[in-house]
Structures are given as structure tokens and as C-alpha cells.
């Protein structure tokens, strides 16, 4: 079907449709909205995207993305360098930071070991993690990986790799989420929650 707008607008719609959560129809709506708010939104968005493209780098220390290398988390002297939180993706790091419960440093693996997807240890940022621990100063490594078979396999693999070093490896608890109703939980989560029950 021929586009109803000029090629520039069609190109904008096509690119927006590639974003997560947007299909062709919603991309059209988003494009129309941007065009209507040309000065307030389209211009600043374009500028922000250009700047981001030019300045965003991956932190050579932890694998986080930021506009400086090392990233703002790694260069923050107030953070506790003795605790290292290992996460699969930058999205997981952002989730933990949103929770505001940690004042530790992070390490982003860039995924989890996955035989089906062909992701092996060499495809992940594991070597740098071992180097960081080997450099000293780290007392605890919190493996904040997903509660999936791939995530837990990765956690065990890393624990094994770090076993020669004097570092405590811990993982996140598995159980009932805050606000969760038992009736809606799967049997596996309930069993894990019961197994790691605590005294009141």
C-alpha cells in the first residue's frame, strides 16, 4: 500500500514502528503526535537522540551504559566497593537502582548463559568480572540474575569461577512478591518461598 505521507514521514513511521511496544498503527499515531508538537517535542527529541548517539559509551569497568567512561556509578566514591552486584542487563541495573536499596557497585554481564541461543561464557562480560574480583577489595558478590534456569546456571558458573578468591557469593531470594496473592502463584514459587521461610 502506498504511503499516505511523504517519504520522510513514512521513514519516521517505519523507524518508530521498530521500537518495543510500537506497531505500525501506534507508530503512525506517535509520528503524528511528534509532527503536531514539532517545536516542543520533535526538535528536542531529535537533538537528544543525536547527543545520545554521539556520547553514550559502555563502561569499560562494569559494562553499564553512560555518557562517561568509567560510568557515574563506578566513579562515585560514596559507593561501597566491597559489594559487587552482578546483573544480566543494564535494564536490571536500572531496576535495582530504582529500588534505592543498594549502595554497591555493579557488573553487567550482557545476558545469561543460554545453550539454545548459543550464548556461552565467552559471549558474556565474565572475564572482566573475575579480573575485578581478582584485583581485590571485593568482599561480597551478589548474583542478582533472573530466577530462570539460564540465570541460575550463570550464577553457579560464576560462583565456581570465583571460588579461588576470598569472596562471598550470594543470590537473591526466590519467593512471594510484594502484593502477591498466594492463589495466583505458581507451585514452584510457592515451594521456593516455603523453603526459605523466615522467623517472625
Amino acid at each position, binding site marked *: 500500500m502506498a504511503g499516505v505521507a511523504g517519504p520522510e514521514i513514512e521513514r519516521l513511521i517505519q523507524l518508530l514502528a521498530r521500537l*518495543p*511496544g510500537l506497531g505500525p498503527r501506534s507508530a503512525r499515531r506517535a509520528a503524528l503526535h511528534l509532527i503536531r508538537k514539532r517545536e516542543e517535542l520533535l526538535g528536542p527529541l531529535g537533538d537528544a537522540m543525536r547527543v545520545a548517539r554521539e556520547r553514550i559509551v559502555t563502561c569499560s569497568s562494569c559494562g553499564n551504559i553512560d555518557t562517561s567512561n568509567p560510568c557515574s556509578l563506578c566513579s562515585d566514591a560514596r559507593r561501597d566497593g566491597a559489594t559487587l552486584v552482578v546483573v544480566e542487563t543494564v535494564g536490571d541495573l536500572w531496576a535495582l537502582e530504582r529500588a534505592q536499596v543498594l549502595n554497591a557497585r555493579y557488573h553487567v554481564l550482557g545476558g545469561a548463559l*543460554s*545453550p*539454545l*541461543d548459543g550464548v*556461552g*561464557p565467552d559471549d558474556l562480560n565474565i572475564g572482566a568480572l573475575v579480573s575485578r574480583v581478582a584485583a581485590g577489595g571485593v568482599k561480597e558478590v551478589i548474583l542478582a540474575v533472573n*530466577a*530462570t*534456569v539460564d540465570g*541460575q*546456571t550463570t550464577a*553457579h*558458573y560464576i560462583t*565456581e569461577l570465583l571460588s579461588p578468591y576470598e569472596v562471598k557469593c550470594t543470590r537473591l531470594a*526466590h519467593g512471594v512478591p510484594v502484593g502477591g496473592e498466594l492463589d*495466583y502463584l*505458581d*507451585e*514452584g*514459587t510457592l*515451594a*521456593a518461598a516455603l*523453603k526459605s521461610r523466615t522467623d517472625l
Partner: protein
Amino acid sequence: MAGTDPRIKSGDGHGGFNISASQEGRGGGGSMEWSERALVLGVKKHGETSVILEVMTREHGRHVGVVRSGRSKSMQPVLQPGNEVAVTWRARLEEHIGAFTVEPFTLRTHLLMADVRALHGVNWLAALLRLLPEREPHQNLFEMAAALLAHLGDPLAPNLFVRFELAVLSELGFGLDLQKCAATGATDDLIYVSPKSGRAVSREAGAPWAEKLLPLPAFLRGDLKTPASPDDLRAALRLTGYFLDRDIFAPRGLKQPDSRATYIATL
């Protein structure tokens, strides 16, 4: 935690299930549909909300299909390797990837996560089943895999793995003959396996070539109740590993899965 899907009836209680599978279209049009109990081998993300699920079934072998909303909070715990599920596969044509609807049957991922050896075991089992061609029934391997998954945390599991690898070799046309001596036909005192023929060799016949022959642990010729020491198990896994490498992995340009080595290291 076993589910009660009416389409799947409990059989002999040890992996044997009566399966009502329908290859005929419902309401005409020639669409494909079948229902089976399945072992989850893995999932791949597909789009934003769906996944491509890989399962092992008794009648349809290793099979993949799309699970819509497979990344939802309720489906994610179900679609983990090692779980048993009841699936219904539908497609317009047989050659299409098709779509699965999935109901939980036996969820055991939480048990696997608590046991490092079991966790490596489930990855190893999935890697072995991935050696099979898709959509080709291997009923014996399905039954063995189901039994193995149910006993992954048991001391018996390594012994089951050895026998499972022997069965994989056999199903793929590279079975070992461990019942009689390749040279003399003797059935006693078989302590070697020829690396060339994959056949057992007796102590007497093999003596001149003992260094070149592979050791055959005695428990492999007995049943599951025959005790096996960790050394016996390692020797047996070296034996199956040799033939898996030579006949299956190397010709396909593959290397043994890391999970196999990590599992063996835990013995």
C-alpha cells in the same frame, strides 16, 4: 503438583502415558492439531510478548512452536527447562511452526535451581535431546528423559545419564555392543570396549591391546541396581563421551556441551 489435563491420562506411572493425538483438522480445512505431554527443553524470545518453545514429546519427538503471551508473568515459570507441561499444537499446515497452548503438568524448576548438579543436568539433557532431528518420534528416549528429569536430584541420576547417552548413540545409529566380545564372542569378563568398533572386548582377547582399548565399567552390563562408584561413572562417561564426540558432535562441527563437563566435575 501434577496437573489434570483431561486430554492426557495417567498411564503406568513411570513415564508411560496414553496420549490422545489428533492429526485431523477440527471443523475441516485440514488444520493440524495434537495434544501431548511434553518436556520443556528451552525457550527463545519471539517479539515482545511471545516465545518459541522447544519441547520433547513422545509421539512427535522434539518439536518447536510459538507460545503467544509466553513471556507473561504466569507463563514464564511454566516455560522453564525441566518442567513437564501439557501442550496442544495447532497449525494450518504441517510444515508451519505452529502455535502451542500450554498447561503446567509437573513444575520442578524450583527444585533444579536449588541443586547445582541438577541444574547442569537439565542443560545437559536438553543438549543431548537437541541432537535428535525435529518432529521425529523417539519414544524410548522420551520415556528415559522423563524418568531422568524426575530423578535429577537423586544419587541414581549419573547412572541414568550414562544409560541415556548410550540410548542416544543407539537411536542415532551408533549403538555400542556391550553384550559379547567382538573377538571371541565370549559373554564373560568383558572389561574393554574397542574404540574402533564400539564393541566389548574380553580381558583375555584385549590383553595385547589393553592400552588402546577403552575401559568398560562392570556396572554398565548390569541393571540400574548395580552399584557404581564415582570412578566407574566417570569411566562410563568417558566411554560414552568418546563415541558421542567421534560419531555425533565432531561430524556436525559441534563440541560437547559445557554442562556435561560441569556435571561430571560434580561427581
